[in-house]
């Protein structure tokens, strides 16, 4: 046992400790050292100090911490005792080796209440300081209870050692006992919280996704409702919203095609109307008759009349033949010049006319007969009841966005109700009843150049100004 223990054997009638005889044993039996042990009636026990032995062998209590004593029995007669002194450090090491959880205390308590207590922070030896011995149930081999020690709650475990009346006690803090439960509880709470957060964020992202899908769809549909059918829902979703978007796209496609077909058929009807007019006119008859009149006029020296007839025929040829044709602005302007000359002669120069065309605009393509009806409208309506200072100004300008055409007169102005009707004219719905020329231009403009083209009329008692915008491609 090395330095940790000293062993004494005290026997009756024999000596193994020099100079001590059986008398010593007899004397020792009646000493205070053994009284406690003998009173316990046990064969062995752990005790704190043996002052008699100390005195006899000349040592101090500091040399050991506690001792073990065991009776040696021979034929039911005590013949001696073994006393085992154990150092404090040995006990401490043994207690430390018990590996109890942190903040726990472990204590060895002898029969006489001497405590050797180990904890992480301190080693304590004391005489029944904690009163552990009083708290445990004597006679039970082991047990536990919850109690308070130095202001903290512990679980108090104890176990009877061997056949003696000594005990091993452990104080395990309640916090450690409940820690795992707390950890489990906390994990559960955190788990539930995470679950709620995940559920919420999934819910939010789904609802946001749905919200986005709906708002995208809504935006496209409201554009479509306003007439812009060149819209498309870009939706990559594979769920019902993807299907809805696809169906809406298909529907828009169908509407687009239907609208295109409708426009085309309106155009075809108009063309057919013109063709039938052309057929009714019977050009062979028309031009031959005009030529006959022409030669009569020439025969009578009426060269002015002849000139007007040729001019009229030129006008008719240009306006009737391929009336939907695309020509250059310069070709259209050449025709307009002839038309204006004819009208000026017809009305005996009732009005002056200025034709102002940008050089850059000259080579631009334009559909025939979009400007002439505007001039005709001015000639027919603007100067009623007026003899002088009548003027029509025609301007054609090319800008980056397209062609701007303006026909302005200084005439009597347009009826406000009619002006309103013409400016809000919808060729898809309204039927042309009056002002066929202007409405025809509005319709053909939309059909040739789409929704970005414009015709607008401003009018007051100072005159009327009609503007046309043809977007460049």
């Amino acid at each position: 046992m090395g330095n940790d223990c000293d062993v004494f054997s005290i026997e009756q009638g024999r000596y193994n400790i020099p100079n001590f005889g059986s008398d010593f044993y007899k004397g020792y039996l009646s000493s205070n050292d053994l009284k406690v042990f003998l009173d316990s009636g046990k064969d062995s026990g752990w005790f704190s100090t043996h002052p008699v032995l100390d005195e006899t062998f000349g040592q101090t209590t500091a040399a050991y911490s506690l001792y073990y004593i065991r009776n040696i029995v021979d034929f039911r007669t005590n013949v001696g005792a073994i006393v085992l002194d154990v150092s404090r450090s040995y006990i401490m090491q043994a207690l430390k080796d018990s590996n109890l959880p942190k903040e726990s205390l472990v204590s060895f308590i002898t029969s006489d209440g001497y405590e050797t207590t180990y904890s992480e922070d301190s080693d304590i030896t004391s005489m029944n300081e904690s009163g552990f011995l009083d708290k445990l149930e004597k006679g039970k081999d082991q047990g536990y209870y919850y109690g308070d020690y130095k202001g903290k709650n512990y679980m108090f475990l104890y176990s009877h050692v061997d056949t003696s009346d000594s005990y091993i006690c452990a104080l395990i803090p309640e916090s450690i006992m409940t820690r795992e439960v707390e950890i489990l509880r906390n994990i559960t709470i955190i788990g539930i919280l995470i679950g709620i957060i995940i559920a919420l964020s999934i819910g939010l992202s789904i609802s946001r996704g749905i919200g986005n899908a709906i708002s995208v769809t809504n935006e496209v549909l409201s554009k479509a409702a306003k007439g812009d059918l060149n819209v498309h829902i870009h939706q990559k979703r594979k769920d019902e919203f993807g299907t809805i978007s696809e169906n809406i796209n298909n529907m828009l496609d169908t509407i687009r095609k239907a609208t295109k077909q409708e426009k085309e058929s309106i155009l075809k009807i108009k063309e057919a109307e013109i063709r039938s007019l052309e057929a009714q006119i019977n050009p062979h008859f028309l031009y031959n008759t005009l030529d006959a009149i022409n030669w009569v006029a020439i025969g009578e020296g009426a060269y002015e009349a002849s000139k007007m007839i040729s001019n009229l025929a030129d006008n008719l040829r240009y306006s009737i033949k391929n009336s939907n044709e695309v020509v250059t602005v310069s070709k259209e302007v050449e025709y307009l010049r002839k038309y204006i000359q004819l009208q000026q002669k017809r009305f005996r120069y009732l009005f002056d006319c200025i034709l102002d065309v940008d050089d850059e605009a000259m080579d631009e393509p334009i559909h025939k007969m979009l400007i002439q009806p505007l001039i005709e409208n001015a000639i027919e309506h603007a100067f009623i009841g007026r003899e002088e200072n009548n003027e029509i100004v025609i301007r054609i300008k090319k800008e980056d966005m397209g062609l701007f055409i303006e026909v302005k007169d200084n005439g009597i102005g347009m009826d406000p109700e009619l002006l309103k009707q013409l400016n809000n004219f919808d060729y898809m719905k309204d039927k042309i009843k009056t002002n066929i020329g202007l409405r025809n231009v509005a319709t053909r403009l939309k059909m040739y150049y789409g929704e970005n083209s414009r015709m607008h009329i401003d009018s007051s008692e100072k005159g009327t100004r009609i503007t046309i915008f043809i977007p460049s491609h």
Partner: protein
Amino acid sequence: MRIVIIEDEVQIREGLKNAITNLTKHEVAGTAVDGNKGKALIKQEKPDLIITDIRMPVMDGLTMLKDLQNEGMQFKAILLTGYSEFEYAREAIKLGVVDYLLKPVDINNLVATLNKVEKV
């Protein structure tokens, strides 16, 4: 130039004749009222220039020119037409047609065209 005029409408035929006679140095050698009579007239007169209408009763102007060409005649012709672009342009050029006059005929245009054709 000696010119023949083939035109079924009297006002136009006479008008052209008078205009050419009175306003130019050219001579009208004869006139006819349809392609058939025109053919005979042309064979007889062998004019420097034929002015012919297209649509005429009995025989139209282009058939008349084709017949004459098939018979080995060489000639210059001007067509009278109501349209600025007539669908027979390609065929007409093969048939010796050098120009056209739009109805109703403008006097200035007539004189200019005749001068132009004379130089061809």
